């Protein structure tokens, strides 16, 4: 029998960052690499058991752990069809064959987002390095936009070839977005490189100053997990419902589709700078538009079901007033439906912009916030009016009939 947990992190998008600290740092602080790995495994498990989502950037040491834990927890918590892990993959770090491997090996538990074009053999070393650097930056930005909070476990210090350690870069981005960061095993070189940032990160992350200090130095994976979960649960409780899912190009299906289409990424030759195939970018945008359309359709289905259910309840108990509950419910569905419709139109505008762009390359941007589509217009659009107004009229009519009969 397993201990059961309430969904105290339901829908919370927990970013996971980290790197194995240098061996010397580990030894000095009484840690071993197994402690770091165990801490990662425990935290992933605890977050998933409480209904949270893990967001990560395909760190080679941590990915197998996340995979093992996520598979262990598969089907154990209800998450409304959403996958429990979101994995960002920086395209230029992998070759095309590895994209297929990623799809096959991780899509059962994770949504995979490929950021940037994959590596190609004909690139020079400098082009490759520039492409990687640029797309890593983009990936970090996307990850920090999507995640509600960042948990860092371990981390390396400044090295000759890495002037800004990855964990520090990711924590800084979260800080800039005023999102909370929890730092565990912040020891040795990493602690030194982050010493200016640490006091800022310790603020408003759900833990007290003393708890933060314990988290940074605790040598026991269980203690680390306990503190992190405490912090996350407090944050979740104060922020209550997390924001609706960010509108990102989604998942492995897309990456696989790109492969099937054998799309070539032509403009990587011009690196540095984010340039890629317009076709694949249009595919990505189309994916989002499809998803929005599907959301609208599902909402309409749900609206009808809920109204029918309420009427069945009202009729069976001879309580006509119950049927009036359908009015605010329908209104809520209408508002949400209009929201998705607006999003769809925003992405249609983005699609047109990319389509009509004269330059051959693209930066794969999925930012559609710059377009102007008025919410009120979508709310009062023909497809919405024709569906919701008759439904509202029907509610009032049935209410009158039920009142008359009772």
């Amino acid at each position, binding site marked *: 029998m397993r201990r059961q947990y309430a969904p105290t992190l339901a829908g919370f998008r927990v970013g996971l960052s980290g790197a194995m600290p240098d061996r010397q740092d580990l030894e000095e602080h009484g840690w071993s*690499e197994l402690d770091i790995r165990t801490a990662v495994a425990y935290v992933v498990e605890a977050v998933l058991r409480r209904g949270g989502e893990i967001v990560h950037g395909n760190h080679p040491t941590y990915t197998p752990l996340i995979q093992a834990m996520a598979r262990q927890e598969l089907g154990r918590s209800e998450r409304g069809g959403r996958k429990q892990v979101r994995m960002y993959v920086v395209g230029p770090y992998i070759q095309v064959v590895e994209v297929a491997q990623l799809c096959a*090996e991780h899509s059962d538990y994770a949504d995979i987002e490929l950021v940037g074009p994959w590596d190609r053999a004909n690139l020079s070393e400098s082009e490759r390095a520039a492409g990687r650097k640029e797309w890593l930056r983009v990936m970090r930005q996307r990850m920090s936009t999507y995640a509600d909070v960042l948990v860092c476990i371990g981390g390396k210090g400044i090295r000759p070839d890495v002037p800004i350690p990855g964990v520090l870069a990711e924590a800084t981005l979260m800080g800039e977005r005023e999102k909370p960061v929890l730092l565990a095993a912040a020891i040795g070189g990493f602690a030194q490189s982050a010493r200016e940032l640490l006091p800022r990160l310790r603020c408003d992350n759900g833990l007290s100053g003393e708890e933060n200090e314990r988290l940074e130095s605790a040598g026991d994976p*269980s203690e680390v997990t306990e503190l992190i979960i405490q912090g996350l649960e407090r944050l979740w409780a104060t922020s209550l419902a997390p924001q609706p899912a960010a509108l990102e190009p989604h998942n492995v299906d897309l990456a696989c589709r790109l492969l099937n289409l054998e799309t070539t990424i032509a403009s990587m030759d011009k690196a540095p700078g984010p340039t890629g195939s317009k076709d694949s970018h249009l595919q990505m945008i189309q994916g989002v538009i499809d998803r929005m359309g599907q959301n609208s359709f599902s909402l309409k289905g749900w609206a009808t079901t809920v109204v029918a259910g309420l009427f069945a309840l009202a009729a069976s108990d001879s309580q006509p007033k119950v049927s009036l509950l359908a009015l605010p419910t329908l209104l809520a569905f209408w508002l949400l439906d209009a929201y998705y419709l607006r999003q769809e139109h925003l992405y249609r505008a983005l699609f047109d912009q990319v389509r009509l762009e004269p330059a051959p390359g693209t930066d794969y941007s999925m930012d559609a916030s710059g377009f102007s589509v008025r919410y009120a217009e979508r709310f009062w659009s023909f497809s919405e009016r024709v569906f919701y107004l008759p439904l509202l009229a029907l509610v009032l009519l049935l209410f009158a009939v039920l009142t008359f009969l009772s």
Partner: protein
Amino acid sequence: MSEVTDSISLYVAWDAGEAADPKDAAWARDLIRELEILLPRMVGDRLSDEDQPRIIPVEGFESLPSPESFGALSVLLLVTPSRERGFAPAAAERLRALAADAAEAPVWEGRILALGRTPGRLPAPPPLDTLQGISLPDLSQDRVTEVATAALINASLRLSRDSQASLFISYAHRDGWALAEALSEGLRGRGFRVFRDENRDSDGMTSIPAGNSTQEVIQANILSHGFLLLLDTPEAEKSTWVREEVNTAFGYLLPLLSVVVESPPGESKVRQGGRFRAVRELEREVRLSSEALGYDKTPALEIAVEKALPEIATQAVEILLEHLRSRRRLIHGSRQRFETLRYSWKIHGKDRFQFAAERPTPRRHVTKRIVVQCSPYPRLLRPVVGSLNDCFRAAEVPFNWAVLVHNALASQDDENEALGDHHFILLLRPHEIAEEAFP
């Protein structure tokens, strides 16, 4: 016999009595003296004071420890008698019992290390005649280090897995077969249990999807051993099979050591840490020249392996001791948490890390009793649940709860299968030990 604990215990046993060779006793005492100097140096502060290995002399085979008193992390270093002298029937029976693991066949290697004082003493007399043993013509520091290394590895592997644990060699057939073969032989000669998958890896596979039977085979293989020795060759990097083995070892928290073989001449030097990005983070490697590549054993390969063996053994011990320390946190952490909840804590079962936690309740003369089993190994889930169930049912004073504290990863199906009808057994991580877990 001294009190049994769950720390590493090395029993050094020799033949005694009137007809025994008197040189055996003197030699065994010298060995103990050397080990007493060497072990603290090897272990250092990798283990806490209470976890430091203990050496227990056993004078005469009739005093061999009973299976009940032979702790979970015990290893018997046995000075083999001559074949003519052999073992008395009672001693042979005791040896069989010590090597037996639950209902399974005897596990000689790992629990018992046969030490041959002179060349004629190996192989040992029956029933240890199938054991390879370690030949010790002298007690030089190198030789004693070999024995201590083998004993520490065999003991600490057991806390990683179970009593059949061994070093699992992961390699690509195409350019690592000869090296894997030479390393297996060399390591076996040093008293290690080694497993090498003889099946040709499916290098042609481009990926191993979730739930695929290949993945299940790999997982079963890796999880039944305690330590992954990765032969990092150019072909291994391309092998989906090897990559899956490395990922499984990482995902299931197993210790891992990489033997990096340089690429053939003319190709660029392999970077520090090897070809696998995940493994590079561990900052450990043993490096061999490109002469070790290939499908055929060559004299150059054998020389390279012979040179590398001590380094592999030393690094393996370091890694295993680190893991041992971390694994023992499961026990220390559980104890601490129960004590915070005001439970008393004492050893209950001698072999498999079983403890009894007790606390008086507000009701007079009523005590809350919990039998706690700490288990860090996924593969042991089923036998451990069985042993916990036996303990729960057979207790003279009944327990209120049976708690299995573990850091294993297991699918829901595995757990359900292991738990069977024992739904009263509660599975917990150490940080999940809380008042509300067992009301």
